[in-house]
């Protein structure tokens, strides 16, 4: 029997999941009746957003030239936030189907994903999808693929996952063009973990690809990276319904259950070997997931103190439960002067953050207040040591700091030619360095920049979309840390520094950002009986100032007809408003002011 292991890679919404479903149907893995749209995405959220968050592997069979082929389809997350997971999944394959929408053409993630595949030595089959649409322009898109990725236009397969046109040819092409798995390198068993998920009854389910040797039920296994031991209690394949097998042999893909209690005990990219006869060397490429984007989550309720505590616990439970399913985000309990108890969370990237937030609200049933995202900074101290922080409040004494480094990304933008000027300006304003420009088609270009991650985590994507009227796409990859003139700005309200409002930003942007923040604050903080100075300072030096004037008169006269109740209620309302406020020195600051500061546009 022949084996082919492959992935489908595509930009969001280019039809990856529909094509996957269609492949299952064509190979009779799923009956017409059972075919739900996007069968492989098991989470509601994935279905709704049309993006695949967690990979799974499905085994199907196809007959080509009279011979049976076992096709193992490994689904990958579609976004570069999960670049590491994607690359591990791709490592488990020999080839990939590159899907491009016949109406949209090559997009930023098409390029990013294709590069990842090429880096992993995968054979690519370019497919132009959605050719049934009236606005489809398959030949042009094929030309774009050739232009950008160097895959000959004439080798592009035209198909419609929706109507099924071209799908049979695609299956044949997979058997024909994708290379068979390489022969084993060693006689010791080695299997690559490319995904895992948590099941309430069986514990962690590990998805793996066997590169050398074989795994059998009852085997005592060892994870080479973490050193943990387990005994295999179940092996199987998804066809797409789970089907138990006794063994997974060389080149096969499937799942493994071994009484593993927590997702964090299993690391994507780790190598499974036999405990009794272990391999010397792990499969290459394993690394720890690294959180680059941080923000804080607080329960959104503003009701009384007792209710608040309950909300916090609901949030904690939801976060802990979610963590069981996603070991790549981290969290720590935190307390904010303004927002009470909450969690500081770290994510692989922006999309990852958004997904976690939505899943918490949806699956955990909690409403969340989310602070603006920040990045992780490396602080190089004068003694040569490096400290990593992701909260301005954790910045050490400035006199001990040699330099501050921030994450740098390589950013690729694909956009209509007429928007290039505006996008150049946008990136320039965000401390971007122009790296190059490539021709995609008569009307579209690809721009390369390097810029700090901090400059794109907040509203960059929205700006890009608005400049290009929705036609621009972007993708980024973190390429390292670099030092810049980064400073901590303190915000002082009535001469008292408010730690929760401090921020790290570039020295040159400090005045402008400070002014924007102070102006926001001026609108948010009610006037008091005294004048309130608002100041922004860098190391004690004031760089911006606003003033909230004192209230001169607040007295109502009427108590006509002795309606005392109404008068009292008006005053109580004034007072109640104050309860939800945080006292900083003698100034009451509303919760909203803290949030407004954290989300003030840069």
């Amino acid at each position: 029997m022949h084996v082919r292991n492959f992935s489908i890679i595509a930009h969001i919404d280019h039809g990856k999941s529909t094509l996957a479903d269609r492949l299952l149907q064509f190979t009779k893995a799923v009956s017409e009746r059972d075919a739900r749209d996007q069968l492989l995405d098991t989470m509601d959220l994935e279905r709704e957003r049309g993006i695949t968050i967690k990979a799974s592997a499905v085994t199907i069979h196809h007959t080509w030239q009279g011979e049976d082929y076992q096709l193992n389809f490994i689904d990958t997350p579609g976004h570069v936030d999960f670049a590491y997971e994607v690359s591990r999944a791709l490592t488990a394959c020999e080839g990939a189907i590159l899907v491009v929408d016949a109406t949209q053409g090559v997009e930023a993630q098409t390029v990013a994903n294709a590069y990842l595949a090429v880096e992993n030595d995968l054979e690519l089959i370019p497919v132009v999808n959605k050719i049934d649409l009236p606005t489809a322009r398959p030949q042009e898109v094929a030309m774009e693929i050739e232009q950008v990725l160097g895959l000959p236009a004439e080798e592009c397969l035209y198909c419609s996952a929706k109507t099924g046109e071209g799908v049979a040819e695609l299956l044949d092409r997979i058997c024909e063009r994708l290379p068979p798995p390489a022969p084993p390198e060693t006689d010791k068993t080695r299997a690559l973990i490319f995904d895992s998920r948590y099941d309430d009854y069986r514990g962690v389910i590990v998805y793996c690809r066997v590169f050398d040797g074989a795994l059998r039920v009852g085997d005592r296994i060892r994870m080479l990276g973490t050193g943990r031991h387990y005994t295999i209690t179940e092996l199987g394949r998804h066809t797409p319904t789970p089907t138990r097998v006794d063994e997974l042999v060389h080149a096969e893909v499937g799942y493994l259950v071994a009484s593993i209690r927590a997702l964090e005990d299993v690391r994507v990219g780790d190598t499974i070997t036999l405990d009794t006869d272990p391999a010397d060397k792990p499969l290459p490429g394993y690394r720890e997931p690294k959180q680059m984007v941080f923000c804080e989550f607080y329960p959104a309720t503003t009701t009384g103190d007792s209710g608040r505590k309950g909300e916090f616990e609901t949030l904690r439970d939801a976060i802990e439960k979610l963590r069981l399913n996603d070991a790549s985000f981290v969290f720590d309990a935190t307390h904010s002067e303004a927002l009470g108890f909450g969690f500081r969370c770290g994510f692989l990237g922006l999309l990852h953050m958004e997904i976690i937030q939505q899943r918490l609200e949806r699956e955990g049933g909690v409403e969340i207040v989310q602070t603006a995202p920040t990045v992780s900074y490396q602080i190089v101290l004068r003694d040569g040591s490096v400290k990593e922080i992701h909260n301005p409040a954790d910045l050490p004494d400035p006199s001990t700091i040699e330099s501050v480094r921030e994450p740098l990304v390589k950013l690729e933008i694909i956009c209509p030619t007429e928007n290039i000027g505006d996008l150049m300006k946008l990136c320039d304003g965000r401390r971007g360095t122009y790296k190059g420009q490539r021709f995609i088609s008569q009307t579209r270009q690809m721009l390369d920049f390097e810029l700090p991650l901090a400059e794109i985590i907040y509203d960059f994507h929205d700006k890009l979309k608005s400049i290009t009227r929705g036609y621009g796409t972007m993708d980024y990859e973190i390429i390292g840390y670099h030092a810049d003139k980064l400073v901590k700005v303190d915000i002082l309200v009535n001469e008292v520094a408010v730690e929760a409002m401090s921020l790290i930003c570039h020295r040159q942007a400090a005045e402008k950002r400070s002014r924007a923040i102070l102006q926001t604050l001026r609108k948010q903080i009610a006037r008091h009986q005294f004048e309130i100075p608002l100041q922004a300072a860098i190391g004690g030096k004031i760089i911006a100032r606003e003033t909230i004037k004192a209230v001169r008169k607040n007295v109502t006269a009427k108590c006509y007809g002795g309606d005392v109740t109404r008068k009292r209620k008006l005053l109580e309302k004034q007072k109640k408003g104050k309860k939800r406020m945080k006292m900083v020195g003698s100034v009451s600051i509303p919760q909203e002011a803290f949030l407004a500061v954290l989300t003030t546009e840069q």
Partner: protein
Amino acid sequence: MIPLAQLTTSDPRLQALSMTASDLPLAGGPGPRGLYVHVPFCVHKCHYCDFYSLVETGPDSRRPAFTDRLIEEIRAAAPRVPCPLQTIFVGGGTPTLLEPGLWARLLAAIRTHLPLAPGLEFTVEANPDSLEPELLDVLVRGGVNRLSIGAQSFNPRLLATLERRHDPANVRRAVGLARAAGITNVNLDLIFGIPGQDLDTWLADLDEAVSLEPLHLSCYSLMYEPNTPLTARMRSGAIRRVDEEVEAAMYEATIDRLHEAGFEHYEISSWARPGRACAHNLLYWRNESWWPLGPGAAGHVEGIRWKNVPRLGDYLRVGPLPPITDVEQLDEDGTVGEILMLGLRLTEGIGEAQLRTLLARGRRGPQRASAIEQQVAAGLLARRDGFLRFTRAGLLLADTVLAEVL
């Protein structure tokens, strides 16, 4: 009697159908010292007013029916008024819109059914346009000895901004007629902070009012009440709110000007010639008891506050005591809060001995004591001659201060 806890439903319609003042646990005490009567008719609704009033004219007016109903209510309330009334205040609306014949019947009913103290202060609110000698004669003969005239301003342009339809010249005329009829105890209501008004035009209004030699002046800063045309016009930008600094200056200038003119500033917005403070209003500020009559009237007896149903239709339909709504009996802390809120509005303030007693009541005493100290430290309250009272700066920020100590 229904337990009070069950009475405090928040749906006025439901309450309106279910209970009257006879369901309240009021028996046994000394009863009310004052009476408030609400007359809900107006010729025209002024744009700043949010009180319950109806514009009803012509032959189909419900004024006679209202008067009948009010007299019926007086009869029914009489058993709840065991001690002689010290004050009566008829407000509105525009009480002077009731025809002299209706007034005569109303006054007779009051004198017949209710016990009245010898020194009774009996005030009627009057619109300068609807005060005629014939009516005044009826009022005086019926025992009315104080008039409160809604002057608001003498400036036609500012009156127009308020959609106040009286002729400013009629204020002088009304004061003259009142004196001629034997009523010397006259109050003038004035409003400052009207859009388009500056300090000088306000002081001109104030001087004009003083020149009429009233014994009492009420000077209110214009309030933008929700759901009034005035507030809507302000929001839409059609009129501009007077700057807060200017309003503050107007208030301070009022205090100085009336002091020079020999008036005593006895409450945040009330000034009187010595001995002429409004006894009825003092009931309010001293948290004493008064009985409400008429639709929408609010009362306070034995620590219970309530209101008659506001709609004339409901009021006319059910009797003899009308349905009531917004019933409220405060706990110790709530009561202390109200006493402080009301008492501090008087410029004499609250006596230290009474204050100590108040702060010993309820659970929030220590909290209140510290809030008071903070306001003293901020210079908004002061302790002087055995009283805690507002400073001048405090008067300007009275609501801020009161919200803190409530």
